[in-house]
């Protein structure tokens, strides 16, 4: 699989938003675009894998919901770890489910945000993951 390592130069980077809640997905996508990110939106784990693998470039970070139909956050994370081309993409789990924390930690996810979260917090996490210069999200 041949996925370019970098997104378009004029944006802050490509972020995948994986959430089955369409309304929230759209809002996050809109907000991130407003903040200068490119966004790849997917409705569950399988959809995300397909879009990332089939897309023109690899996302620099993945915002992942944990409870989803078809392929949930845990299953996606396992598939991601098994795919060397995707394994290194940092993941932030954004969930309303507190029990996801332990499961996510076991699957090597270091950042978990509980819904609802302030935009500033999410942007800081993304900035760190995408190694953006400080002040770029302020």
């Amino acid at each position, binding site marked *: 699989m041949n996925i370019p390592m970098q997104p378009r130069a004029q944006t802050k980077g490509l972020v995948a938003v994986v959430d089955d809640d369409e309304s929230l997905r759209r809002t996050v996508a809109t907000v991130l675009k407003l903040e200068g990110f490119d966004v790849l939106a997917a409705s569950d784990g399988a959809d995300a894998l397909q879009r990332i693998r089939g897309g023109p470039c690899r996302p620099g970070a993945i915002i992942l919901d944990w409870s989803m139909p078809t392929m949930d956050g845990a299953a996606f994370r396992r598939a991601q770890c098994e795919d060397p081309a995707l394994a290194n993409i940092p993941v932030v789990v*954004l969930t309303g489910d507190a029990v996801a924390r332990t499961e996510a930690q076991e699957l090597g996810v270091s950042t978990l945000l509980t819904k609802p979260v302030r935009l500033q917090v999410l942007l800081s996490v993304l900035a760190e993951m995408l190694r953006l210069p400080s002040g770029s999200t302020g």
Partner: protein
Amino acid sequence: MEPTIGETQKSIPSLDAERTARFQKNLLELQMEASPDGLIVVSPSRSILLSNRRFVEIWRIPDAVVRMHDDHEAVQATRARVREPQEFVARIEWLYSHPEVDAHDELELVDGRVLERHTAPVRDRESGTYYGRLWSFRDISNRKLLAGERIARRAAEIAAKRQAILAEVGRVLMEGADDRTLRTVLSLLVPYLGRVCMLHLFGDDGSLVPLCWPPSSAGLPELAARDGAALAMRKRSRVFESKFLALPVQCRGEILGAAVFHADAPGFFDDERVELAEQVVARVALARLGDRLQRALRDAVSARDEFLSIASHELRSPVAGLQFASDALRRAISSGRVPNFPPTLSELLQSSENHVLRISTLVDTLLDVTKLRSGRLHLELEELDLRGVARDVVARHCAGAGLANCDVRLIGDRPVFGYWDRARVEQIIDNLVSNAVKYGAGKPVTVTVGVERGTARLVVADQGIGIPPHRVGRIFDRFERAVSARAYEGLGLGLYIVGQIVSRLGGRVNVESELGVGSTFTVELPTSGPSDIREVEA
């Protein structure tokens, strides 16, 4: 030489007849005096022809009355002694007007004695001429007393036995009304309520489950039991085939099943036994219904908690969307990306942000409650400074209120370290401070932090409206608040959450309050953290 009676009769008939009559009269008088009964003979014209001493004794009337030989006087004297004087006199008059009648009855006297009364006409055996009426009275008080005592003793024994059975049944049913318990109840009834005792009760799936004691006799009177159960299901209690007693098991108009008792002896089910069976069955019905209601209540509470849990989870996504959207708008305006943004719209945006904050707090609260209810509250323990956390919370409140207006003050000059969950300790302080500000009537609130012998103490005191005495004890219950829900918003869950988290952290919280003076909440937390977690980690 005195002539013999035979010679006298033969030689001087008139004199002999006179002597014989005197002899017979003497004999009669002797017999009458020797009688244990009070006797009196009254002529048709109601004069007293004969009476004995015992009559006077029994009736406790003056001799003079009898010596008047007037029966009306005797009736007047005796009527005052009986319980039912009118009936007594009427009966006497009726008997005098019916000379042919023999009668036997009992009289109750006002002094408690009971007399047996017998009366019969006195007639000439040959001619049938009616001479009058003989009355005889016997005091049977002792006999009555003994019989009464025997009956009372027997009744007391039966009552004691019944009470013992009912008490034991009640004790067993305290534990519930499952099959095992009900079999124990049945075992207590054998043999007093029959050789075989059965219950046929509807199970959760609506089918009729038979329970029998002794267990080995199940099926023995099966047909009759089935008939009896069917009979009882029609809400009728009755003895049938003279050896079975069938009772409906019902409570508040609902049929829960039937009870059937079987005995070998016909007539076994007398009133006493039927009544006892009814009382036992009523207790069984109540316990059974109690069990069902308890189960239904648990299910309902569990369903409610489940619903709250799902609802608060489901609400998180739309609230997150709202939060992102309003944050993004605010960032866009602040960064100047939206030039000439009208101040009115900015105010609206601020209002929207406030509402998002409120709804997100409510959702958090609901979720916390569901976690606490289901025991799923996860604690992340770390070493932290209680005073530092309190300082941050107070600072946040002051930032919200505007520093100049801040009426929340922190007291405590040393850090207080302990092993706690930072977010939860923050929540405790935040809830107590918010509460104090909310009900503080605008007067200063103090937060005092200290430590003593391994116990950290946090005291939040206000000078507000206070809590009515009758509500102080319930203030840490769910949905409880000191004043009406209309006056102060919120779910009434803040102090419940405080109480629960403090308890999970191994501490305790209490409140002292006086109406119109204020409330003081004191939280005590072991600095070593909750004991159950310490044990696990040790």
